[in-house]
């Protein structure tokens, strides 16, 4: 049944640092690479080299501009993937039982052998985290790299989602957000991590760390000091020489 578990033993998820993300899209490429080569139907591209390319991605990086009242505008790069919500609306709408949330670690997954490609789960998700693969006709979503994080054939350092492993800026963190003593939970507490669209009532597990307050150049520092009215030394000589011309 596509009922949500009452509680999950762990709440595995991502913490994304909007202050650190440089918008390089390496996480997008790493995600597509891992997830097209491993579990389930590949993430297809349609017309990839033509005039109207379109493809399936489980992670996309948006860029926004936000202008504070008393300062210059700043650009914020904004990676977005499945937030593995505690109250995941995509799970309960599924008629076939393909969509489910795991009781042991809270990961939201699609059983591709049961998906009929109706697309209702993608409609139910406020975040655009699910995309129907246009070739396979099956719903694809972030698996939190479930085939990496428990994979004992990989080096321990690689047992994190591909996006986290590849991020060159250290803007992506993976861990158990249900454990208040985990590194990710401490990070969220220290930086005031937030939920996306809390009004939707989905209780996302993934958290976003807002950009830190930037240094501001004060108005008095902004302009150069004027040259002294009565220069002395070399400047004084130049001043007098120029006056005589």
């Amino acid at each position, binding site marked *: 049944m596509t*009922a949500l578990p009452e509680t999950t033993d762990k709440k595995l998820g991502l913490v994304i640092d909007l202050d650190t993300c440089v918008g390089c899209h390496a996480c997008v490429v790493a995600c597509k690479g891992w997830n097209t080569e491993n579990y389930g139907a590949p993430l297809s591209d349609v017309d990839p080299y033509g005039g109207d390319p379109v493809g399936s991605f489980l992670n996309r990086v948006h*860029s926004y*501009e936000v*202008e504070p009242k008393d300062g210059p505008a700043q650009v914020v790069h904004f990676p977005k993937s499945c937030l593995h919500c505690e109250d995941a*609306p995509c799970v309960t*709408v599924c008629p076939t039982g393909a969509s489910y949330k795991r009781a042991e670690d809270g990961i939201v997954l699609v059983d591709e052998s049961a998906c009929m490609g109706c697309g209702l789960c*993608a409609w139910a998700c406020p975040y655009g985290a699910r995309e129907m693969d*246009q070739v396979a006709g099956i719903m694809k979503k972030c698996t939190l790299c479930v085939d990496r994080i428990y994979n004992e054939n990989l080096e321990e350092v690689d047992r994190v989602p591909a996006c986290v492993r590849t991020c060159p800026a250290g803007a992506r963190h993976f861990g158990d957000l249900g454990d208040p003593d985990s590194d990710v939970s401490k990070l969220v507490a220290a930086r005031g991590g937030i939920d996306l*669209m809390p009004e939707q009532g989905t209780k996302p597990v993934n958290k976003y760390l807002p950009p830190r307050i930037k240094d501001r150049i004060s108005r008095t520092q902004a302009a150069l000091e004027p040259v002294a009215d009565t220069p002395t030394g070399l400047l004084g000589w130049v001043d007098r020489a120029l006056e005589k011309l």
Partner: protein
Amino acid sequence: MHPAPSVILFTTLSGLGFGLLAFLGIGQPPVTGWVAFVFYVIAYGLAVGGLLASTFHLGNRKNAIKAFSQWRTSWLSREAWLSVFALVAMGLYAAGAVFGSVLIAPIGIIGAALSVATVYSTSMIYAQLKTVPRWNQPLTPVLFLSLSLAGGAMLAAATMVAIPLLVLAGVIQLAWWWQGDRRFGEAGSTLATATGLGAIGTPRQFEPPHTGTNYLMKEMVFVVGRKHARKLRTIAFAAMIVFPVLMLLVSGGHLAAGLAILSHLAGTLISRWLYFAEAEHVVGLYYGAR
């Protein structure tokens, strides 16, 4: 939302078909024999045709049978069961009427109730979605039910019931539009809440994640239909409600009733197209659109 023809046909035709089945189930009209046969062919043609149309938008039809498995949580699964129950119950009732010339009232009433419940479950597939505020309102099931019953009454030739039901459906349609236009604002999702950047200032899209389109934008960020929405609403309302009511008032003949039904069907299709085309999904906010 993308107004897929398969889903527009499905909700419109099966709504009409189950509406007619509901009237036949309560013995309106109390037909038997060949006349009943014709009524049931029309009703099953619409209801089953609509259901079949709905399968055309599935990406992976071979798993469609699994849609019966999640009735405890999923409205789509409940709809699958209710439609089968309704068609089976009304099938038994129809067999009695056509072949035995007997109307087994208890089965008919159960079938009628199941037919109405099927239309309700269809409407709840949409009404449950908090992500589409225009649909996520209590009037959505009322709209589906009133249109289904008004159309069903017309097909059942129950003119004296059809006229007040059409007027009722018209009032609900207007109220639904009026309320629907306010729902996105009421739901409170903005780019500020979507990104959490509202604490800094007012965010706006600087650069989209890719230069092309994607599944999400094709499916949920549909803007073409809004340009002529006001005109289309007027046309839909005139064809769906006003013209059929006038036709039924001026003439009791078959021609007038036929024209009224065709006009109602065309108007409902336009209204249902707008139902999708005008509906904004909150994910559009991430793309600087609605």
